């Protein structure tokens, strides 16, 4: 146990779990307010288990079930990208995959990617994934029963905690100038896209742009290297 708590990824995962889990109170309260029963609200947290999509689902229910389904599904597409990366990084065995898929969310992905080395990444993923699931469901339950008695979670600064947590998870990756530049560019693009695209899509757009930039730069770099090595070029005849 002391071994586990000595792991930076586990401690990071626990911090993330508490910060995110507490937000479940607001989901529980909002779910009941939106007209779901307490158990329907709880089912979304246990089964859908991807916060953004859950809020989108209850927020779009006014437009009917199909609107709620569309909004939640669109917002969840990013989880497929996370899944592919977790799968490539941690290469889990067959039977574990469905379980890992269920706990693949912003927080478990980000905690895994922020950790150093295979074992730490694995610990980070599981701690944040299982930790958020447990606390998110516990606090959804509390929120659905106690309702709005606790007040607005914003007054407790919980949205500020989420901002700080994601910046903390990004931070270790910004050591090079290139990485920092890419991060700033993607953040800007995301902010610009927010008013024009449904929630969840700006994030995918930033990911797509990053991959395209990466591919273009890689190609021009390869070309430069090829030109330098070209035996028919001037370089070879200087001597």
């Amino acid at each position, binding site marked *: 146990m002391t071994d586990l708590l000595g792991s930076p990824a586990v401690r990071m995962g626990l911090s993330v779990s508490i910060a995110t889990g507490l937000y479940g109170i607001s989901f529980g309260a909002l779910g009941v307010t939106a007209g779901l029963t307490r158990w329907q609200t709880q*089912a979304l947290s246990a089964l859908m288990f991807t916060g953004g999509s859950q809020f989108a689902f209850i927020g779009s229910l006014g437009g009917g079930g199909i609107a709620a389904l569309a909004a939640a599904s669109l917002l969840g597409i990013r989880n*497929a990208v996370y899944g592919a990366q977790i799968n490539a990084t941690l290469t889990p065995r067959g039977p574990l995959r469905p379980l890992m898929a269920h706990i693949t969310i912003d927080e478990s992905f980000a905690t895994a990617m922020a950790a150093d080395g295979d074992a730490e990444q694995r610990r980070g993923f599981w701690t944040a994934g299982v930790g958020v699931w447990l606390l998110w469901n516990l606090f959804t339950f509390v929120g659905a029963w106690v309702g709005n008695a606790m007040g607005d979670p914003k007054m407790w600064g919980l949205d500020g905690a989420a*901002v700080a947590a994601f*910046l903390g998870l990004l931070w270790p*990756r910004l050591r090079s100038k290139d990485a920092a530049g890419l991060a700033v560019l993607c953040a800007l693009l995301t902010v610009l896209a927010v008013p024009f695209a449904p929630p969840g899509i700006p994030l995918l757009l930033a990911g797509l742009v990053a991959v395209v930039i990466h591919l273009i730069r890689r190609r021009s770099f390869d070309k430069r290297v090829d030109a330098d090595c070209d035996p028919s070029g001037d370089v070879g005849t200087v001597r």
Partner: protein
Amino acid sequence: MSLWGWILVASAVAFATKLVGYLLPAAWLDSEGFGRASSALTIALLSALVATNTFASGQALALDSRVLALAAAGIALWRELPFLAVVIIGAAVAALGRLAGLP
């Protein structure tokens, strides 16, 4: 379909979406190109998460106490404070902003 029906269908879609990533052929993921692109993708997704969590309010942009939380977290990280301290500082600064009457 009943509300329960929509909840179960939407949950099934959410799970299937998550699972798709795990079912991609391993050969695709082993290639060197994927590894390098994946690192760029991770930075992009994380910085987009920071951006939406700070500035997005549904589909609108908002400047509120979360911006103060972002700045405070940035300073805390620059001073190399531990992760938990960074998260607590982010929450405290946003809560103080609201206490001071900011949105």
